[in-house]
């Protein structure tokens, strides 16, 4: 069974190797989709019978619990949609000469490497390896962000690499300090960074050193989640990256980094009590929400608008995590999954709008619903998911987060967050309706929808609706994950 844990890491790497040999070909593109699908299938197989507890693989290098299964599910789902849509995306980029065969080749190699790094980040038992995997996602995506090689794309990738590397370096310092504390709590040097060892010795960690470590880890991984103060890369990178990559960065990468924070939190809470990280998460969460809401109001660029919507949602789950109850954690996981699928919808649709208009300005785009039913409907459904309209899943998750906050005596935080969320809601709806419903310009270009992108969009719409109807067996998975993280009632 342990060997199964290698599939989500090795399958994408094999696809990357094939793409490196073959270049941008249909065959390698389809193998990449299959690799992403295999992550999803592994998650499903592991999901059955995970109640028995935690599983290890490859000695004790890899470890999977319900949180890991959930994150694999998110990586697999959004990864499949994004790799599928990549076929149509890269073909169109080649046709419009925005990239060349070498660029397409590089894209074909780096995209599955990115998926493998994220899978390793959620499966690693050693939090140092987890760290290395998260930093590897930065390296893998640097050239994906700058794929078009325009001035804007280069600027975005430079800022992305520098800001995320510095942030993640702070997380490494935090990891080193935690290692130091763990060694002094009597752990052996080979295992002192393993999650299970840290959890079992958490009560004996030196509180002063752990506090320093926790602060650094929160700031450092917060950079990758897109939380204040290292949030400035988010809008630049996600607006410049190719649409499928933006979907992965916004829908999956940020959530994977947040999952690392949740794991760190479970250790730190046992050592310091819940108060320290609660204050930290509330502060960065509320500030992130504030920045996101204000930038959404004045936004003129639709891809940046979607990036700030990611920040809004990450801020919200940071606030929810501060409550730390089972209800809150389960709600976060549902939120993350629904957000991933919703973000795939809007980013993939936005990519086609950008291709058609050769612009990402909101004022250039009107009447999308009448011009292309599929792109219009996908964008509309995606926005409805993201602003939390019923019947979609984020309505339920946001409701649960509110209940969890009220239950954890954090009603004041809820009171502070709600007005900001209403502002963000209004801004997204205002910009969205302008793009979707405005009178179509006679000179508006036709919106092309390649078959693979159409298929990915349709699948994502169906998934969004289905997840809105019922989370089915996922509800149990989310609650088990919360219990395994040591969340209180």
């Amino acid at each position, binding site marked *: 069974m342990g060997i199964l844990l290698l599939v989500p890491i090795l399958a994408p790497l094999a696809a990357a190797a094939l793409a490196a040999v073959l270049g941008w070909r249909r065959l390698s593109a389809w193998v990449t989709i299959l690799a992403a699908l295999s992550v999803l299938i592994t998650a499903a197989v592991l999901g059955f019978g995970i109640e028995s507890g935690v599983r290890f693989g490859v000695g004790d*290098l890899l470890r999977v619990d319900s949180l890991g299964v959930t994150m694999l599910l998110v990586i697999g789902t959004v990864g499949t949609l994004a790799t599928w849509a990549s076929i149509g995306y890269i073909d169109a980029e080649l046709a419009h000469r925005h990239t060349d065969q070498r660029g397409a080749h590089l894209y074909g190699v780096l995209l599955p490497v990115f998926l493998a790094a994220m899978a390793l980040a959620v499966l690693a038992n*050693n939090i*140092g*390896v987890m*760290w*290395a*995997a998260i*930093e*590897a996602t*930065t*390296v893998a995506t*640097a*050239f994906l962000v*700058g794929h078009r*090689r*325009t*001035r*804007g794309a*280069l*600027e*975005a*990738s*430079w*800022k992305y*690499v*520098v800001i995320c*590397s*510095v942030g993640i*370096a702070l997380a*490494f*310092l935090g*990891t*080193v*300090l935690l*290692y*130091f*504390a763990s*060694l*002094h709590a009597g752990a052996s*040097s*080979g295992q*002192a*960074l393993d999650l299970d060892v840290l959890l079992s010795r958490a009560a004996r960690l*030196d509180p*002063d*050193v752990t*506090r*320093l470590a926790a602060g650094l880890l929160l700031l450092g991984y917060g950079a990758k989640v897109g939380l204040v103060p290292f949030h400035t890369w988010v*809008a*630049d990178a996600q*607006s*410049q990256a190719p649409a499928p990559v933006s979907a992965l960065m916004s829908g999956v990468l940020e959530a994977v980094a947040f999952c690392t924070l949740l794991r760190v939190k479970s250790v730190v809470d046992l050592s310091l009590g819940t108060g320290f990280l609660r204050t930290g998460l509330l502060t960065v969460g509320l500030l992130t929400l504030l920045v996101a809401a204000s*930038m959404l109001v*004045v*936004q*003129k*660029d639709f891809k*940046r608008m979607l990036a700030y919507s990611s920040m809004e949602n990450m801020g919200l789950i940071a606030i929810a995590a501060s409550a730390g109850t089972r209800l809150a954690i389960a709600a976060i996981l549902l939120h993350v999954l629904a957000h991933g699928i919703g973000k795939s919808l809007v980013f993939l649709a936005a990519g086609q709008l950008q291709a058609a208009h050769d612009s990402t300005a909101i004022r250039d785009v009107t009447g999308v619903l009448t011009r292309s039913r599929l792109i219009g409907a996908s964008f509309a459904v995606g926005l409805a998911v993201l602003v939390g309209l019923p019947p979609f899943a984020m309505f339920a998750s946001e409701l649960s987060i509110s209940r969890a906050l009220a239950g954890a005596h954090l009603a004041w935080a809820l009171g502070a967050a709600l007005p900001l969320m209403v502002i963000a809601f209004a801004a997204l709806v205002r910009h969205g309706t302008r793009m979707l419903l405005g009178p179509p310009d006679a000179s508006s270009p036709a919106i092309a929808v390649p078959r693979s992108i159409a298929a990915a969009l349709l699948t994502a719409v169906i998934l969004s609706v289905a997840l809105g109807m019922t989370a089915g067996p996922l509800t149990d998975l989310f609650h088990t994950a919360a219990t395994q993280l040591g969340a209180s009632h």
Partner: protein
Amino acid sequence: MTEATYTGALDLAAGAFLLTAVLIVWRRELSAIVRLLAWQGAALAVLPIIEGIYQREPAPIVVGVVVLLLRAVVLPILLARAVGTEDQERRESTPLVNTTASLLITAGLTVLAYAVTQPIIALDRSPTTRALPAVFAVILIAVFVMVSRRRALSQAVGFLMLDNSITATAFLITAGVPLIVELGASLDVLFAVFVLGLLTSHMRVAFGGTDLDQLRELRD
């Protein structure tokens, strides 16, 4: 090696490590900065080697030699290749903070480092841990270099200094992180510097220079 020479050698290496950081703040010539960075890498590599000789264990010495190769040779060469050939590219442009003020700030950061590291030293009063403030100061200085320099390459140097100093911290307080983590971290740094170097050359083509002030296409 006696206890006294061991402590002395450790303090000397940590001091040299801090000194290279201060000199990097002082110099403006990019090629000189890259050379200093190579010396810093060497000072870093000495830390596990001293430890290995003192404890009579081969493993830290091997780690030290690998660190020496990577941080004193490979990474500086990668960076040196990214230094431009034109005259205006070879020097840091007019700095945001002048040299005198930069050096004063560096001194302030060093004092701050002594304060921040107190809880760590309190937990373990070995000679290695007591050398920590000097190394920790470099973390703060590196961040300062990153925010105050305007050339793309200087920022990359700042990033490497940051990484050197965190690795040095790990050597001093925990005798290095587990091998698999060290391996992953080193690979990441190698690739990150490679990426930064390539981006610098792409930037030179697209912007005609590597002044980071030109990066203002993207804003809200």
